[in-house]
């Protein structure tokens, strides 16, 4: 009795918090183990871990949180954060526990892109970036000494590895193009920037890629398909057709995310490797696209639960957890210190992705599906409808501006 009383007095009574993420086997298993570890370090805090199929995730949150049943800590795609902030579901990370200065010092730069209304609302354990996957056997057979460093070398390698039959049908593509896969991200955050164009204004409210250089960048990409014929859209059917083609040895190179490593490793029969994304000249600007899932604290967590949620969040984004996350889930650490770790950077497969994190940017999406479609359509306007790239890009920018305007008109700031 006395013990209980004193416990109450110092705020030590047991508290239960709930954590939600979508179902992904390796993450679910790992988080279960991490929770045991966290509970051992923090007696009195009990964490309930619940997960849902990815497709039903948002609906589940939408129905549970208004009913007061939602989680205290929630895992979200970074692109959804504005939606959740506007919905009033997230509380800003308390500055005392997570100072913006420390976040910007300790996390890879792209995390800065998820600052919204001048505040941080959530933090990642792990991040993803893009790299160039290459089929070493195909490059060697085409007498290419080393994987490309510049886009010119990339084009040469792609041309020399593309194989066509007598009827002109492509049987092996030099570059597995996929505008709706990762290529639209590459055009936005890599090609535009390397061609000297910032795709959006600093406040994320204006589309700024419709310039002559932007059109040049788009043309460089569409030329791969229309002029050089080194890649065929939908070469293999399906959303991951480009990756399937690479795994099947039918595409010499693809641009893909770190999340593709596991399936390539499991499937590819040929020798393969990964190098950082090419750039325009040897010393030219490096650029990359990054994305991540973040953990945020919901408005549901108040009082002692809020304290516990803060502790759990701190634990989830800590360096030891990030290290295990890389080993067990295969996602890259979000900490700048780990990214600079020479041992990790030297890893032949993860290394190029980790290098990319130093300069990767995460696009601030307000409606990822619609914004992706805009750029995919721009590519198709050029490739299928023979529109001049400049015109296609102008039209794309106008359409995307409308999407941004619609969001910012409703979002009044918190």
């Amino acid at each position, binding site marked *: 009795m006395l013990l209980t009383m004193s416990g109450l007095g110092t705020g030590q009574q047991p508290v239960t918090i709930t954590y939600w993420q979508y179902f992904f086997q390796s993450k679910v298993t790992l988080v279960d183990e991490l929770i045991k570890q966290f509970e051992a370090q923090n007696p009195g805090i009990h964490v309930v871990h619940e997960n849902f199929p990815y*497709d039903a995730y*948002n*609906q589940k*949150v*939408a129905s549970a*949180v*208004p009913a007061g049943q939602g989680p205290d800590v929630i895992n979200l795609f970074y692109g959804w954060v504005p*939606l*959740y902030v*506007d*919905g*009033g*579901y997230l509380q800003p990370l308390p500055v005392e526990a997570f100072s913006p200065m420390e976040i910007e010092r300790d996390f890879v730069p792209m995390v800065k892109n998820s600052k919204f209304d001048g505040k941080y609302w959530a933090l990642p354990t792990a991040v993803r970036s893009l790299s160039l996957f290459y089929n070493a056997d195909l490059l060697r057979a085409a007498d290419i000494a080393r994987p490309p460093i510049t886009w010119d070398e990339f084009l040469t390698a792609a041309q020399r590895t593309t194989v066509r039959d007598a*009827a*002109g*049908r*492509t*049987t092996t593509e030099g570059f597995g193009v*996929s*505008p*709706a*896969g990762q290529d639209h991200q590459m055009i936005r955050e890599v090609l535009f920037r390397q061609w000297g164009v910032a795709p959006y204004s600093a406040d994320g409210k204006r589309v700024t890629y419709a310039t002559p250089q932007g059109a040049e960048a788009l043309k460089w990409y569409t030329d791969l398909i229309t002029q050089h014929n080194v890649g*065929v*859209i*939908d*070469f293999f*059917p*399906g*959303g*991951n*057709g480009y990756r399937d083609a690479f795994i099947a040895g039918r595409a010499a190179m693809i641009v893909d995310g770190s999340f593709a490593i596991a399936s390539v490793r499991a499937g590819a029969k040929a020798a393969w490797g990964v190098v950082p994304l090419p750039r325009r000249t040897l010393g030219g600007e490096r650029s990359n696209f990054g994305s991540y899932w973040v953990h945020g604290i919901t408005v549901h967590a108040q009082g002692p639960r809020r304290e516990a949620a803060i502790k759990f969040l701190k634990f989830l984004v800590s360096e030891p957890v990030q290290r295990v996350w890389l080993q067990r889930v295969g996602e890259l650490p979000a900490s700048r210190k780990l990214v600079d770790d020479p041992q990790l950077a030297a890893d032949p497969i993860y290394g190029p992705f980790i290098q990319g994190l130093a300069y990767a940017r995460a696009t601030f999406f307000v*409606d990822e*599906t*619609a914004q992706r479609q805009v750029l*995919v*359509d721009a590519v*198709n*306007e050029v490739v*299928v*409808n023979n529109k001049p790239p400049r015109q296609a890009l102008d039209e794309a920018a106008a359409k995307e501006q409308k999407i941004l305007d619609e969001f910012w008109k409703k979002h009044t700031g918190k």
Partner: protein
Amino acid sequence: MGLGTRRALWAYTFLLVPLLFFLTIRLAPAFSALYISLHEWNIISPSKPFVGLQNFRLLAHDPSFGRAAVNTLRYVLVGIPAQIALGLVLALALQRINRFRGLFRALYFMPFVTPIVAAAWVWQWMYSQNFGPLNGLLAELRLPLQPFLRSPAQSLYAVTAMTVWQFLGFQVVIFLAGLEAIPRVYYEAAAVDGASGWRLFRHMTVPLLNPTLVFSAVYGTIVYLQLFTQVLNMTFGDQGGPLASTLTMVLYVYQLGFQRFKMGEAAAATAVLFAVILVITLLQMRVLSKPVEY
């Protein structure tokens, strides 16, 4: 209570179960969709303000929705006549043969029981520019290769062809049943009067088959107006085909609601689709059904 009343009571009791199911699973969500369509209903936000007809206005100015609506009508206008014509030809041919009729009927019916997703992926490979047998054949014949699903001009017809293939067997079976229902004596009487061939078909078979035709047209139209799975799976990466060339209303509803979280607009689009289906169905039943007596 008389026997008749008791029987009727029992019948109503049994009917009540499916009725309850219908009310809760079909009708209630339909009305709630109508309710949602009048609100700004972002899936996450707890505030869902009433906005009147604003979602409908947004759709009216949304080129993608316009595109989806036009595409959907094109699917109906191309798919239904093709399906009915081919189905009728095959049914008439099957009716003439006596051997292997069951085998043929089973073969034609097979696509209908094949899972749509699996069939769609096989058809994607068939249409492939580089690996597909269709282009392989064209290459053999030294004809120009075709982009099929990659061409905004061809993709809608490519998806329609797959859908027609899929429903053809069902259509054939329906027509066979309709043809069997026409009494033999009519044909015998017509033969005595010297009618044969095209005239027999035009002035006897078609009018007597009218109820089956109406059913096929109405049912088929509803299927084509709700086209989704075929389209989603045949252009999986760029959903709705290159430049929205295969996009349908239902696929757009899905994208609005579950990918872009705009439930209000998605519900409004559903309401529009519901109205379209209702009007077309009523029109078809009005125009197409003519009672025939001989």
